[in-house]
């Protein structure tokens, strides 16, 4: 059996490296031969080409994420036409069935962002920063957009880079120049969440600014456990890599397949749960 | 050309030089190293804009905004640094900026065969047998390179031909070729400006001689009104000659 996974996240992205770990675990558990592929940057044109390349190899199953249905649709339809069972994961729950995918595992970035927004609003936030480490990456932009909708209050998107020093300085600058900010949402725990917490401490507003972040990192979870940060949003993306592969393997072997979509998250990790997950996070499972 | 001045930042390279060229005449420009000869002819051929002064062509004031303008006005120049692209072939350098074309409209293309043939011919006329027209200029010897530049200027020269130390790196045979060429184009009615440090070369072909010193003209003399030795003294800039001069027996 050969199963190919094509996603839009890079192998060195902490979020996607966990997905990949799930894929690898599934490969080990099912004995199938699984390939994980992704473009080097958020690049829909390239991703379409990777799907085409996968279809050419006639695998027994194909797992894709669908952040842009317009761009990827034709390639996915071509796979379906070629008789390859397709499962979508992570993004694209709304279009997955239409394009002919068997089912979808995971959840929209937008919905997850919305949920985070609601939670932070509940905690009394009125004025928020959405710290985006890769503006233009549609899946990250959607997290911010969802957050804006759920939060309701004033949200400013703060574009930064992957460099923790720069993120910390920028967040610090934003906090210094705007004393009203009371909420920060980071779009990645290691790259943005940890430096954001450090920045809040540095300007002496620890406890007055709620910090939440997408995804998990051991450092950020520790901050959550210590009460320096509010929560981390876990999509349990390990499942998004693990389940589709297992489903497709079972499908190929026995023709068994679940009947509906599987939502993998979101799951808010707050102070109570944080310390349990630290170890798993350090190993790249959560 | 009248009262040309040229400053580079705080350096005054030319402090008022006047000069004229007549058709069919070879005007030699002489002077010590750093006197400003090259700067002066660069002003004449549109490379530098004069800080002060004006250029008149056939009575009308002119202002060249680029060497291409000057070329179109009929001035061809051999620069001291030759203005060659080392990585390009001899032919491409020869015709740079004035490529011969063939065909029409969309199919207008460079006539490479003709260009190659002309280049080889002109070079042979100057006494250099090139190995091939597509050798890169950067791999030519110093004299070969200089010959390419001279052949190019002569080939395209129209009204005025300016030569900045054209014979400095040339062998005996090539030098006499160049002097002969100057003589020939002069007889065709072209005005020639010839810069050299070699008094013998200057006396051989010059009709008038102008000596520059430290950015100023020391004066102009007609042929016959001055002897080679006088000229030599003028060129040395009036400073006492190095003491060994005598012992070397006037060989320079």
């Amino acid at each position: 059996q050969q199963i190919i996974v094509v996603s839009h996240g890079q192998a060195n992205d902490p979020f996607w490296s966990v997905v990949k770990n799930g894929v690898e675990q599934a490969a080990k558990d099912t004995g199938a031969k699984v390939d994980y592929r992704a473009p080097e940057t958020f690049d829909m044109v390239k991703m379409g080409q990777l799907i085409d390349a996968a279809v050419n190899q006639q695998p027994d199953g194909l797992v894709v994420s669908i952040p842009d249905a317009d761009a990827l649709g034709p390639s996915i339809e071509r796979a379906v036409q070629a008789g390859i069972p397709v499962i979508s994961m992570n993004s694209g729950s709304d279009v997955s069935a239409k394009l002919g995918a068997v089912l979808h595992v995971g959840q929209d970035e937008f919905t997850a962002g919305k949920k985070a927004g609601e939670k932070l609003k509940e905690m009394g936030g009125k004025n928020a920063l959405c710290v985006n480490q890769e503006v233009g990456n549609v899946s990250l932009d959607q997290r911010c957009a969802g957050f804006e909708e759920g939060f309701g209050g004033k949200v400013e998107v703060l574009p930064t880079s992957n460099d923790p020093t720069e993120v910390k300085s920028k967040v610090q600058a934003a906090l210094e120049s705007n004393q009203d900010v009371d909420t920060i949402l980071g779009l990645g725990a290691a790259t943005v969440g940890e430096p954001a917490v450090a920045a809040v401490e540095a300007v002496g507003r620890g406890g007055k600014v709620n910090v939440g972040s997408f995804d998990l990192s051991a450092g950020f979870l520790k901050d959550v456990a210590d009460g320096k940060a509010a929560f981390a949003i876990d999509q349990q993306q390990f499942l998004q890599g693990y389940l589709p592969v297992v489903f497709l393997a079972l499908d190929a072997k026995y023709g068994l397949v679940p009947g509906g979509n599987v939502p993998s998250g979101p799951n808010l990790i707050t102070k109570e749960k944080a310390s349990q997950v630290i170890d798993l996070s350090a190993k790249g499972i959560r | 050309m009248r009262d040309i001045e040229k400053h580079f930042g705080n350096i005054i390279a030319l402090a008022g030089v006047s000069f004229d060229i007549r058709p069919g005449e070879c005007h030699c420009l002489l002077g010590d190293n750093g006197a400003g000869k090259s700067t002066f002819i660069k002003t004449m051929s549109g490379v530098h804009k004069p800080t002060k002064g004006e250029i008149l062509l056939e009575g009308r004031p002119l202002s060249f905004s680029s060497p291409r303008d000057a070329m179109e006005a009929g001035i061809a120049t051999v620069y001291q640094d030759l203005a060659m692209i080392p990585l390009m072939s001899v032919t491409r350098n020869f015709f740079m900026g004035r490529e011969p074309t063939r065909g029409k409209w969309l199919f207008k293309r460079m006539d490479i065969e003709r260009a190659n043939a002309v280049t080889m011919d002109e070079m042979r006329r100057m006494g250099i047998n090139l190995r091939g027209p597509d050798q890169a200029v950067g791999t030519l010897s110093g004299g070969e390179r200089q010959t390419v530049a001279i052949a190019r200027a002569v080939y395209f020269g129209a009204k005025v031909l300016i030569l900045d130390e054209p014979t400095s790196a040339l062998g005996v045979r090539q030098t006499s070729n160049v002097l002969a060429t100057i003589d020939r184009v002069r007889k065709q009615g072209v005005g020639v400006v010839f810069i050299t440090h070699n008094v013998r070369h200057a006396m051989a072909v010059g009709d008038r001689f102008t000596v520059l010193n430290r950015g100023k003209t020391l004066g102009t003399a007609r042929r016959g009104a001055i002897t080679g030795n006088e000229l030599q003294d003028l060129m040395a800039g009036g400073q006492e000659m190095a003491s060994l001069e005598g012992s070397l027996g006037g060989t320079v």
Partner: protein
Amino acid sequence: MADVSPIIEDERLKREGFATKLMKRPELGAVAGFVAITLFFLVTASGTMFTLSGIMNFMTPAAQLGILAIGAALLMIGGEFDLSIGSMVAFSGLVFGAFVVTFGMPLVVAIPATFAIAAAIGVLNGSIVLRTGLPSFIVTLAFLFILRGASLVGLKVATGGSTQLRGVRDAIGDDWLAPLFSGDAFTGLFSWLAEQGVIDRFPSGLPKVPGIPVEILWFVAFALVATYVLLRTPQGNWIFASGGDENAASNSGVPVRRVKISLFVLTACCATLVAVITVIDAGSTDARRGFMKEFEAIIAAVIGGCLLTGGYGSAIGAFFGAIIFGMVTLGLTYTDIDQDWFQVFLGAMLLAAVLFNNFIRKRVTGER
């Protein structure tokens, strides 16, 4: 005068075979690299890489990159850089998308209008560089940021808050100009070939390869035209001269300014061509389109033998450079190597390709 004899034999020349002469051309190194990489993948990759569909598959990204790379190569030969082409792809994509979707223009209007805007930016780039004498690296770098940022802002305005503009395919419908810029060419021929069994088919009966993607045709055509211009026209000579030594060229009467500005316009238009093709093909555009493409284009040009200092290089070299880059980026997926190793692999292959090409060239030309 000396006699003007026909070209004579020169005893100072060793005999030189035709092959040796060929290898002295700048692009032939890239060809050697290309051959080496092909052999490598023939051995290591799964067979599907070199089926017809596999070839089309790696040629499509190579073609898109290649169009940019040839433009970048011409500009580099002319002695300048354009770091803004990647951002230009995003910006032109936005402009084109907005024209088509938001303003509902037909392609006959939208495409020329997009090219006009791109050309204007090219002129702007070029004039700043030439006016100020600043290095083009820094000027176009500023435009790298400006255009990328403008695409983001523009997208948000055009879509009302999203960074992705969709619905281009619907808006275009079956505009008569679309086939020139999207989809596959020679589809009829290919389905006929498939019926004859020359081309593989899917179980559903459709040919695995429906035709040749148009970008490949654009790519090949552009490479041929660029080579012709470089080697056989006065303009080509001017490009080499401007890049070789700006002063010497302008002293010899080459209109250096005009040449350089035209080249900046050309690269902007190359970026726009790629933008139009990918936007129609994908049906959408987003703020990350063309990200890092400026570097990939320069990489391809350098693999193809262009010198960063200008004055040397070839369009055919950039052509093969782009194909090498395309093969390497897609090739790993056809092998059994883990994706984590992708970058190590990419770097090693690049190094191997240029080392091999260098080795071959030195061997053949006998340089020390």
